[in-house]
């Protein structure tokens, strides 16, 4: 194994690769921080150019974009409550609340440190135990996935805000909205009302952009123009509020490491992706945190844990494609395509046939993780200055960027209509106390949960007992029940305390 370490390093360590990783991270951060654009578009855009590069350079560039993009989505999520990328939607909850309390700088720092830990953690995991982690991930079949996602859905209780019933309704609405379209298991088109364009379902990204970004912009328009940027208070922070003290960060470390593990495991499972891992780790953090009632209201832990998870998913999502030859996420699929076009076959044999390349790849990954950290600080500083522009200029710019970014995905007018519609829906929901995150979480997790349930029944010959016979599934089901129980208890306690 280590015989390839030095050749791998030498293959990696040249000016071209270093420049391309830097370029990649830079592009990734830009794409990630602009709402609507995200890492996948960045990767798809540069993909044709990668065909003319050497494989190690190509992968460096793609990885840089991916890692930069996943991290940077948290920046507007924290500062504006507008996730720059779907995986940052969980970060927006606590992040924006911290910004409103004048602690935006703290949140941004927590986010970048947690992201670094997440990135490096899964880089090392990939390097050391990719094969074992892949084997573990394979154990998660439909019954386990169903139970896992059911548990993740209980986080709706935490993000529902004051009114739990409204949160539940929002969640159910999200489940319903997600069922629109052609179903995977039955092949039947549901609730499309003859509008063929809906048979692919309501597209997730435009919906997310609408619900979070556009609705936020609508809400911002209600503020008087004359009012300064008190919404963010980032500029008027005292030094203490913008720095992150070790005493504040250290207690989050157990959550962070747990989130890294969750993010890495979910990344290693083909399918779910960074957004799911962000919400699952958010649910777990709430479950196991020492101060669960603070999650969702503005806690450092609530920012750090989804960010650790979604960045951990980055490198881990390459595990299925490298160890099994199965791309588990769109980015992994693009990287696999780039490898294939260079004549390299992803799969178990890649470690034998292309060991040097794999090692140079590992170094590239670690380097990209640290570059994200360094460039991220520059990005944070730029972002803080950017949001200090007068609101009447900032939000229209963000508004336009949302449209451009969302259109850039599929060049489809329907996406923009969906985004605007959900912008209105999100605005109305927020005005009437319905939780937008509850809707989005249910929308995201619902379809996979439903398919997993149906697949489980098919596997179990129609018997529900299949869920009881699988230990991992049972564990998550128990967690789901516990989570619901503790949530109820907390709400009751808060009610008696007069909240």
């Amino acid at each position, binding site marked *: 194994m280590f015989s390839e370490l030095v050749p791998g390093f030498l293959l990696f360590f040249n000016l071209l690769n270093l420049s391309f990783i830097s370029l990649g991270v830079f592009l990734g951060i830009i794409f990630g921080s602009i709402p609507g654009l995200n890492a996948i578009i960045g990767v798809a855009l540069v993909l044709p150019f990668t065909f003319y590069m050497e494989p190690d350079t190509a992968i460096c560039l793609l990885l840089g974009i991916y890692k930069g993009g996943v991290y940077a989505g948290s920046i507007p999520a924290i500062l504006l409550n507008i996730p720059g990328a779907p995986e940052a939607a969980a970060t927006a909850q606590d992040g924006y609340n911290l910004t409103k309390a004048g602690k935006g700088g703290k949140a941004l720092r927590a986010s970048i440190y947690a992201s670094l830990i997440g990135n490096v953690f899964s880089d090392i995991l990939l390097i050391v135990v990719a094969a074992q982690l892949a084997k573990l991930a394979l154990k998660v079949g439909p019954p386990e996935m169903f139970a896992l996602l059911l548990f993740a859905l209980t986080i709706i209780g935490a993000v529902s805000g004051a009114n739990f019933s409204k949160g539940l309704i929002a969640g159910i609405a999200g489940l319903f909205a997600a069922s629109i379209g052609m179903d995977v298991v039955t092949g039947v088109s549901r609730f499309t009302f003859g509008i063929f*364009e809906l048979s692919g379902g309501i597209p997730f990204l435009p919906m997310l952009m609408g619900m979070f970004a556009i609705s936020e912009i609508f809400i911002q328009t209600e503020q008087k123009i004359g009012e300064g940027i008190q919404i963010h208070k980032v500029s008027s922070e005292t030094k203490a509020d913008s720095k992150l003290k070790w005493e504040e960060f250290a207690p989050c470390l157990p959550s962070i490491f747990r989130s890294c593990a969750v993010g890495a495991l979910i990344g290693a499972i083909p399918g779910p992706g960074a957004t799911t891992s962000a919400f699952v780790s958010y649910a777990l953090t709430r479950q196991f945190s020492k101060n669960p009632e603070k999650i969702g209201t503005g806690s450092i832990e609530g920012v750090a844990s989804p960010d650790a998870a979604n960045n951990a998913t980055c490198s881990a999502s390459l595990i299925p494609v490298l160890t099994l030859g199965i791309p588990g996420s769109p980015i992994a699929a693009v990287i696999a395509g780039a490898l*294939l076009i260079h004549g390299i076959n992803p799969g178990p044999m890649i470690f034998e046939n292309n060991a040097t390349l794999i090692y140079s790849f590992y170094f590239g990954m670690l380097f990209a993780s640290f570059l994200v950290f360094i460039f991220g600080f520059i990005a944070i500083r730029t972002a803080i200055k950017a949001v200090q522009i007068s609101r009447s200029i900032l939000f229209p710019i963000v508004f336009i960027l949302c449209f451009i970014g969302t259109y850039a995905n599929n060049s489809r007018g329907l996406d923009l209509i969906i985004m605007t519609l959900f912008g209105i829906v999100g605005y109305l929901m927020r005005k009437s106390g319905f939780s937008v995150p509850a809707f989005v979480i249910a929308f995201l997790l619902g379809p996979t949960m439903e398919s997993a349930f149906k697949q489980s029944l098919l596997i179990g010959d129609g018997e529900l007992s299949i869920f009881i016979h699988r230990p991992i599934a049972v564990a998550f089901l128990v967690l789901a029940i516990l989570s619901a129980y503790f949530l109820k208890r907390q709400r009751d306690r808060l009610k008696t305390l007069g909240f």
Partner: protein
Amino acid sequence: MCYKMSRIVTVCLLSVALIFSLSINSGAADFPSKPVKLVVPYGPGGGTDTIARIISGVIPQYLDQPMVILNKPGATGTVGTAEFKKMKADGYTLLINDAAAMSIKPQTNKLPYQPGDFKIVTQINEAFYLLSINADRPYKTIGQFIDYAKKNPGKIKYSSAGVGHIFHLAMEQAAKKAGIKVTHVPFKGTGKAVTATLGGHVDAVVCYPNAVLEAVKAGKLTPLAISAEKRQPVLPDVPTFIESGINYSGRGWKAIFARKSLPSDKYEILQSAFLKLQNDRAFKKLMKGLGEIIAVTPGEKFEPVWLQEYKDLGDLLTELGMKK
């Protein structure tokens, strides 16, 4: 003042008209004179997308224009196909697609297009369906698989890329010919189906060979039978269904489509460019690396095959109760 204004406006309008008329290319003599777009009705990085990108890297030399990939994923390729139907039939936009969206879905779902809206420029490849099982299962050959299935009807669970997809229908046909009953567990895409099989959650998977090649080489999946008429070089030890006593053969394909109303002069120019792929060294090398079999057949020869398949699939779908 008004006179001057209307003069300026007139000049402007005339210049705009002039520029427009200069940019309209109606003559096939200089076709194509701008990049040609290839619509891929799937997401980036998938099988169809990778082949499309290989094509787009090689064909510019024959077209004298670059080729740009447009991904339009959704609903098993139908959303992109429907969008393609709305695009201008000026030869500057083409579609790469396969039987799922072109032969099956039009017969199982209400779609805004039908095969008659398109014509094939060329076929690109052909691929056969491979049945593989999790290596830990007690049956190790297609014969044992069938015996087990006959003794335990419905017990064997096989996975595939989705309901009504080519792999699902292939397996249903093969099972019918073999006289066995197996249970289909659909997943969203071949990747997830293969993963479920590797994890032992289902027993078997039906897909194209290149999706499982690496797992087979690593001994985690056992290939049982392939749907070709003779053994394939990619897996020479794997018997065909036919030689195993099951009278089933079938194959998948990808082809380049144009709108039916594309003028024939432009059609011929495009077709002759694509036909050159058959002997292009770079194309052959890249496709071989993917494990793909090149079959660049001219549209006129492949269309009857496609339409016959359409009819045969229609009969199968009626039997399965899936016809709309």
